C-alpha cells in the first residue's frame, strides 16, 4: 500500500469521530442485532442439542443483517453529500481509501458483536467467553466487511441500494456464512477438534477477498 497506514488512520479517525457524534451506524446496528437475537430466542426450541445449533444460526443472522444495515448506511453517508468524490480527489491510492472504509466498517461491526455476544450468551444460556469464538467472529467479520465495503460502494450508485446490497452480497458471502455458522456451532458444542477446516476456509476467504476488493476498488469508483 503506497500511501501507508498514515492515510488509512486519517480516514478511520474521520469515520470514528463522525460516529461518536452521531451514533448513526452503531445505534441502528446494535438495536437490530439485539432484537433479532431476542426474537430467535423466543421462536426456537432451545432444549438439548438444538440450543447451540439454533444459537449459532441466530447469532450470525443477527450480525449479518445488522452488518448489511451498517454498510449501506456507511457508504450512503459518503455518497449523499458527495464526500466520496471529495475522498477520490485526494492524492492517495484508491486502495488506501478502500482500506480506510473497510477498517472503519470492521470496527463498527466488531463493536456491535462484542457488545451483543454476552447478551446472546445470556439469552441462549451458552458459554460464549471462549477465545475460539472470538477468533471465528473476527475472521467472519473481516470477510464480511471486505466484500461488503466494496459492494456497498457499487450498490450506493444504484437507485434501490438498500435492496441491492444484500442481493449482491449474499451469493459471494455464502462460504463465510456457512463456515462461520458451522465453526460457531462446533465451538458452542465443545467439538473444537473439528474446527480447523472451517477456520482455514474463513482465513483463505478473508485473504482472497480482501486482496480482490483492494485491487478492484479503483474500477468500482471509476466513472
Amino acid at each position: 500500500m503506497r500511501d501507508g497506514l498514515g492515510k488509512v488512520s486519517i480516514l478511520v479517525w474521520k469515520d470514528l469521530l463522525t460516529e461518536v457524534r452521531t451514533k448513526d451506524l452503531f445505534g441502528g446496528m446494535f438495536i437490530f442485532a439485539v432484537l433479532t437475537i431476542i426474537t430467535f430466542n423466543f421462536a426456537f426450541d432451545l432444549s438439548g442439542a438444538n440450543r447451540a445449533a439454533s444459537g449459532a444460526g441466530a447469532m450470525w443472522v443477527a450480525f449479518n443483517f445488522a452488518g448489511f444495515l451498517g454498510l449501506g448506511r456507511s457508504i450512503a453517508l459518503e455518497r449523499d453529500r458527495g464526500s466520496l468524490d471529495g475522498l477520490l480527489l485526494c492524492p492517495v491510492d484508491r486502495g488506501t481509501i478502500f482500506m480506510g472504509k473497510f477498517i472503519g466498517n470492521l470496527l463498527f461491526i466488531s463493536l456491535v458483536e462484542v457488545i451483543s455476544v454476552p447478551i446472546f450468551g445470556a439469552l441462549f444460556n451458552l458459554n460464549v467467553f471462549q477465545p475460539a469464538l472470538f477468533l471465528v467472529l473476527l475472521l467472519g467479520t473481516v470477510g464480511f466487511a471486505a466484500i461488503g465495503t466494496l459492494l456497498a460502494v457499487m450498490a450506493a450508485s444504484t437507485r434501490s441500494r438498500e435492496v441491492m446490497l444484500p442481493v449482491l452480497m449474499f451469493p459471494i458471502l455464502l462460504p463465510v456464512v456457512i463456515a462461520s455458522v458451522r465453526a460457531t456451532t462446533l465451538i458452542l458444542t465443545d467439538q473444537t477438534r473439528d474446527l480447523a477446516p472451517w477456520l482455514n476456509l474463513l482465513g483463505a476467504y478473508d485473504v482472497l477477498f480482501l486482496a480482490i476488493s483492494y485491487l478492484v476498488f479503483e474500477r468500482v469508483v471509476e466513472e
Partner: protein
Amino acid sequence: MNVSPLQQRAPVDAAAPIPRVPRVKINRLTKRYERRGVLRSIDLELYDGERVVLLGANGAGKTTLLRILATLSRPTSGSVTIAGHLTHKDAQAVRAQVGVVAHQPYLYDDLTAAENLRFFARMYDVADERSRIDEVLFLVGLIARRDDRVRTFSRGMQQRLAIGRAILHRPALLLFDEPDSGLDREGARVLERILGYHRSGGGTTLMTTHDLRFGLTVGDRVLLLENGKLVLDAPSHTLEENALDERLARR
C-alpha cells in the same frame, strides 16, 4: 470557430503581458456516455495565472469537462496534461495540483469547520497544517465559526468552506463548478478575494457559472461549450454580455 458576432469590443491589447506557460493542455478530448457524445474533440490550453470562465447551457458538457480534469472521470479518447502530468497515467500527481469546488460541498456535516479542513490537510499532506487551516478559515470569513459543526452552517457558509477546502493545499489549478451558487454578497466578495489570492500565486482557475456578468467580470478569458463542442474561446473584454446571453438563451 464562430466568434465574430460576440466580439464587438477592442481586440486584445498586444502590449499586455500574456502568460505563456501552459498549465493545462487538452488534446482532442472526447467523452461519450453509451452512444451520446458529451464532449467532442476538445482542444484547449490554459496558462499560468489565467482565470478562464466556461459557459454553456445545461447539458453542454461543462461539469463533465471539469470532472475529467479533476480525474473523477476518464475520457473516452484524447488526453489531458496538468502541470506536466497526464491525468490517466499519473492521476495522484494531478490530484495534488488540483482544487475542486463542485455542486456538492464534499464536507462532513458532523465535523467542525476546522476538523473538516484538518482531515483534508492530512490527506493532502499540508505541511503547516494548523496555521494553514486558520489562514484559510480567515480567507473565507469563517474563522469565528472554526469550531462549529458544518451542520449548523447556512448554504452560503458551506459553500465558502468548500472553497476553503479547495484552496487548502495550495493547488496550481482551481476547478470551480458554479462556485457563486448559494453565495450571498459577502460570499461573492470572499470568492473574488480567493480568486485574486490564487492568481497572485500564479495559479490558474477554470470555472463555470450561469451568471454572465460575474463571469465576464472575474474571467480573463471565456470559453463557450455547445453540445460538447468548444465554439468560442475569447478574451472576456472583447465580449458583449447581451450577445452572449442571447446566444446562450437560444440553446
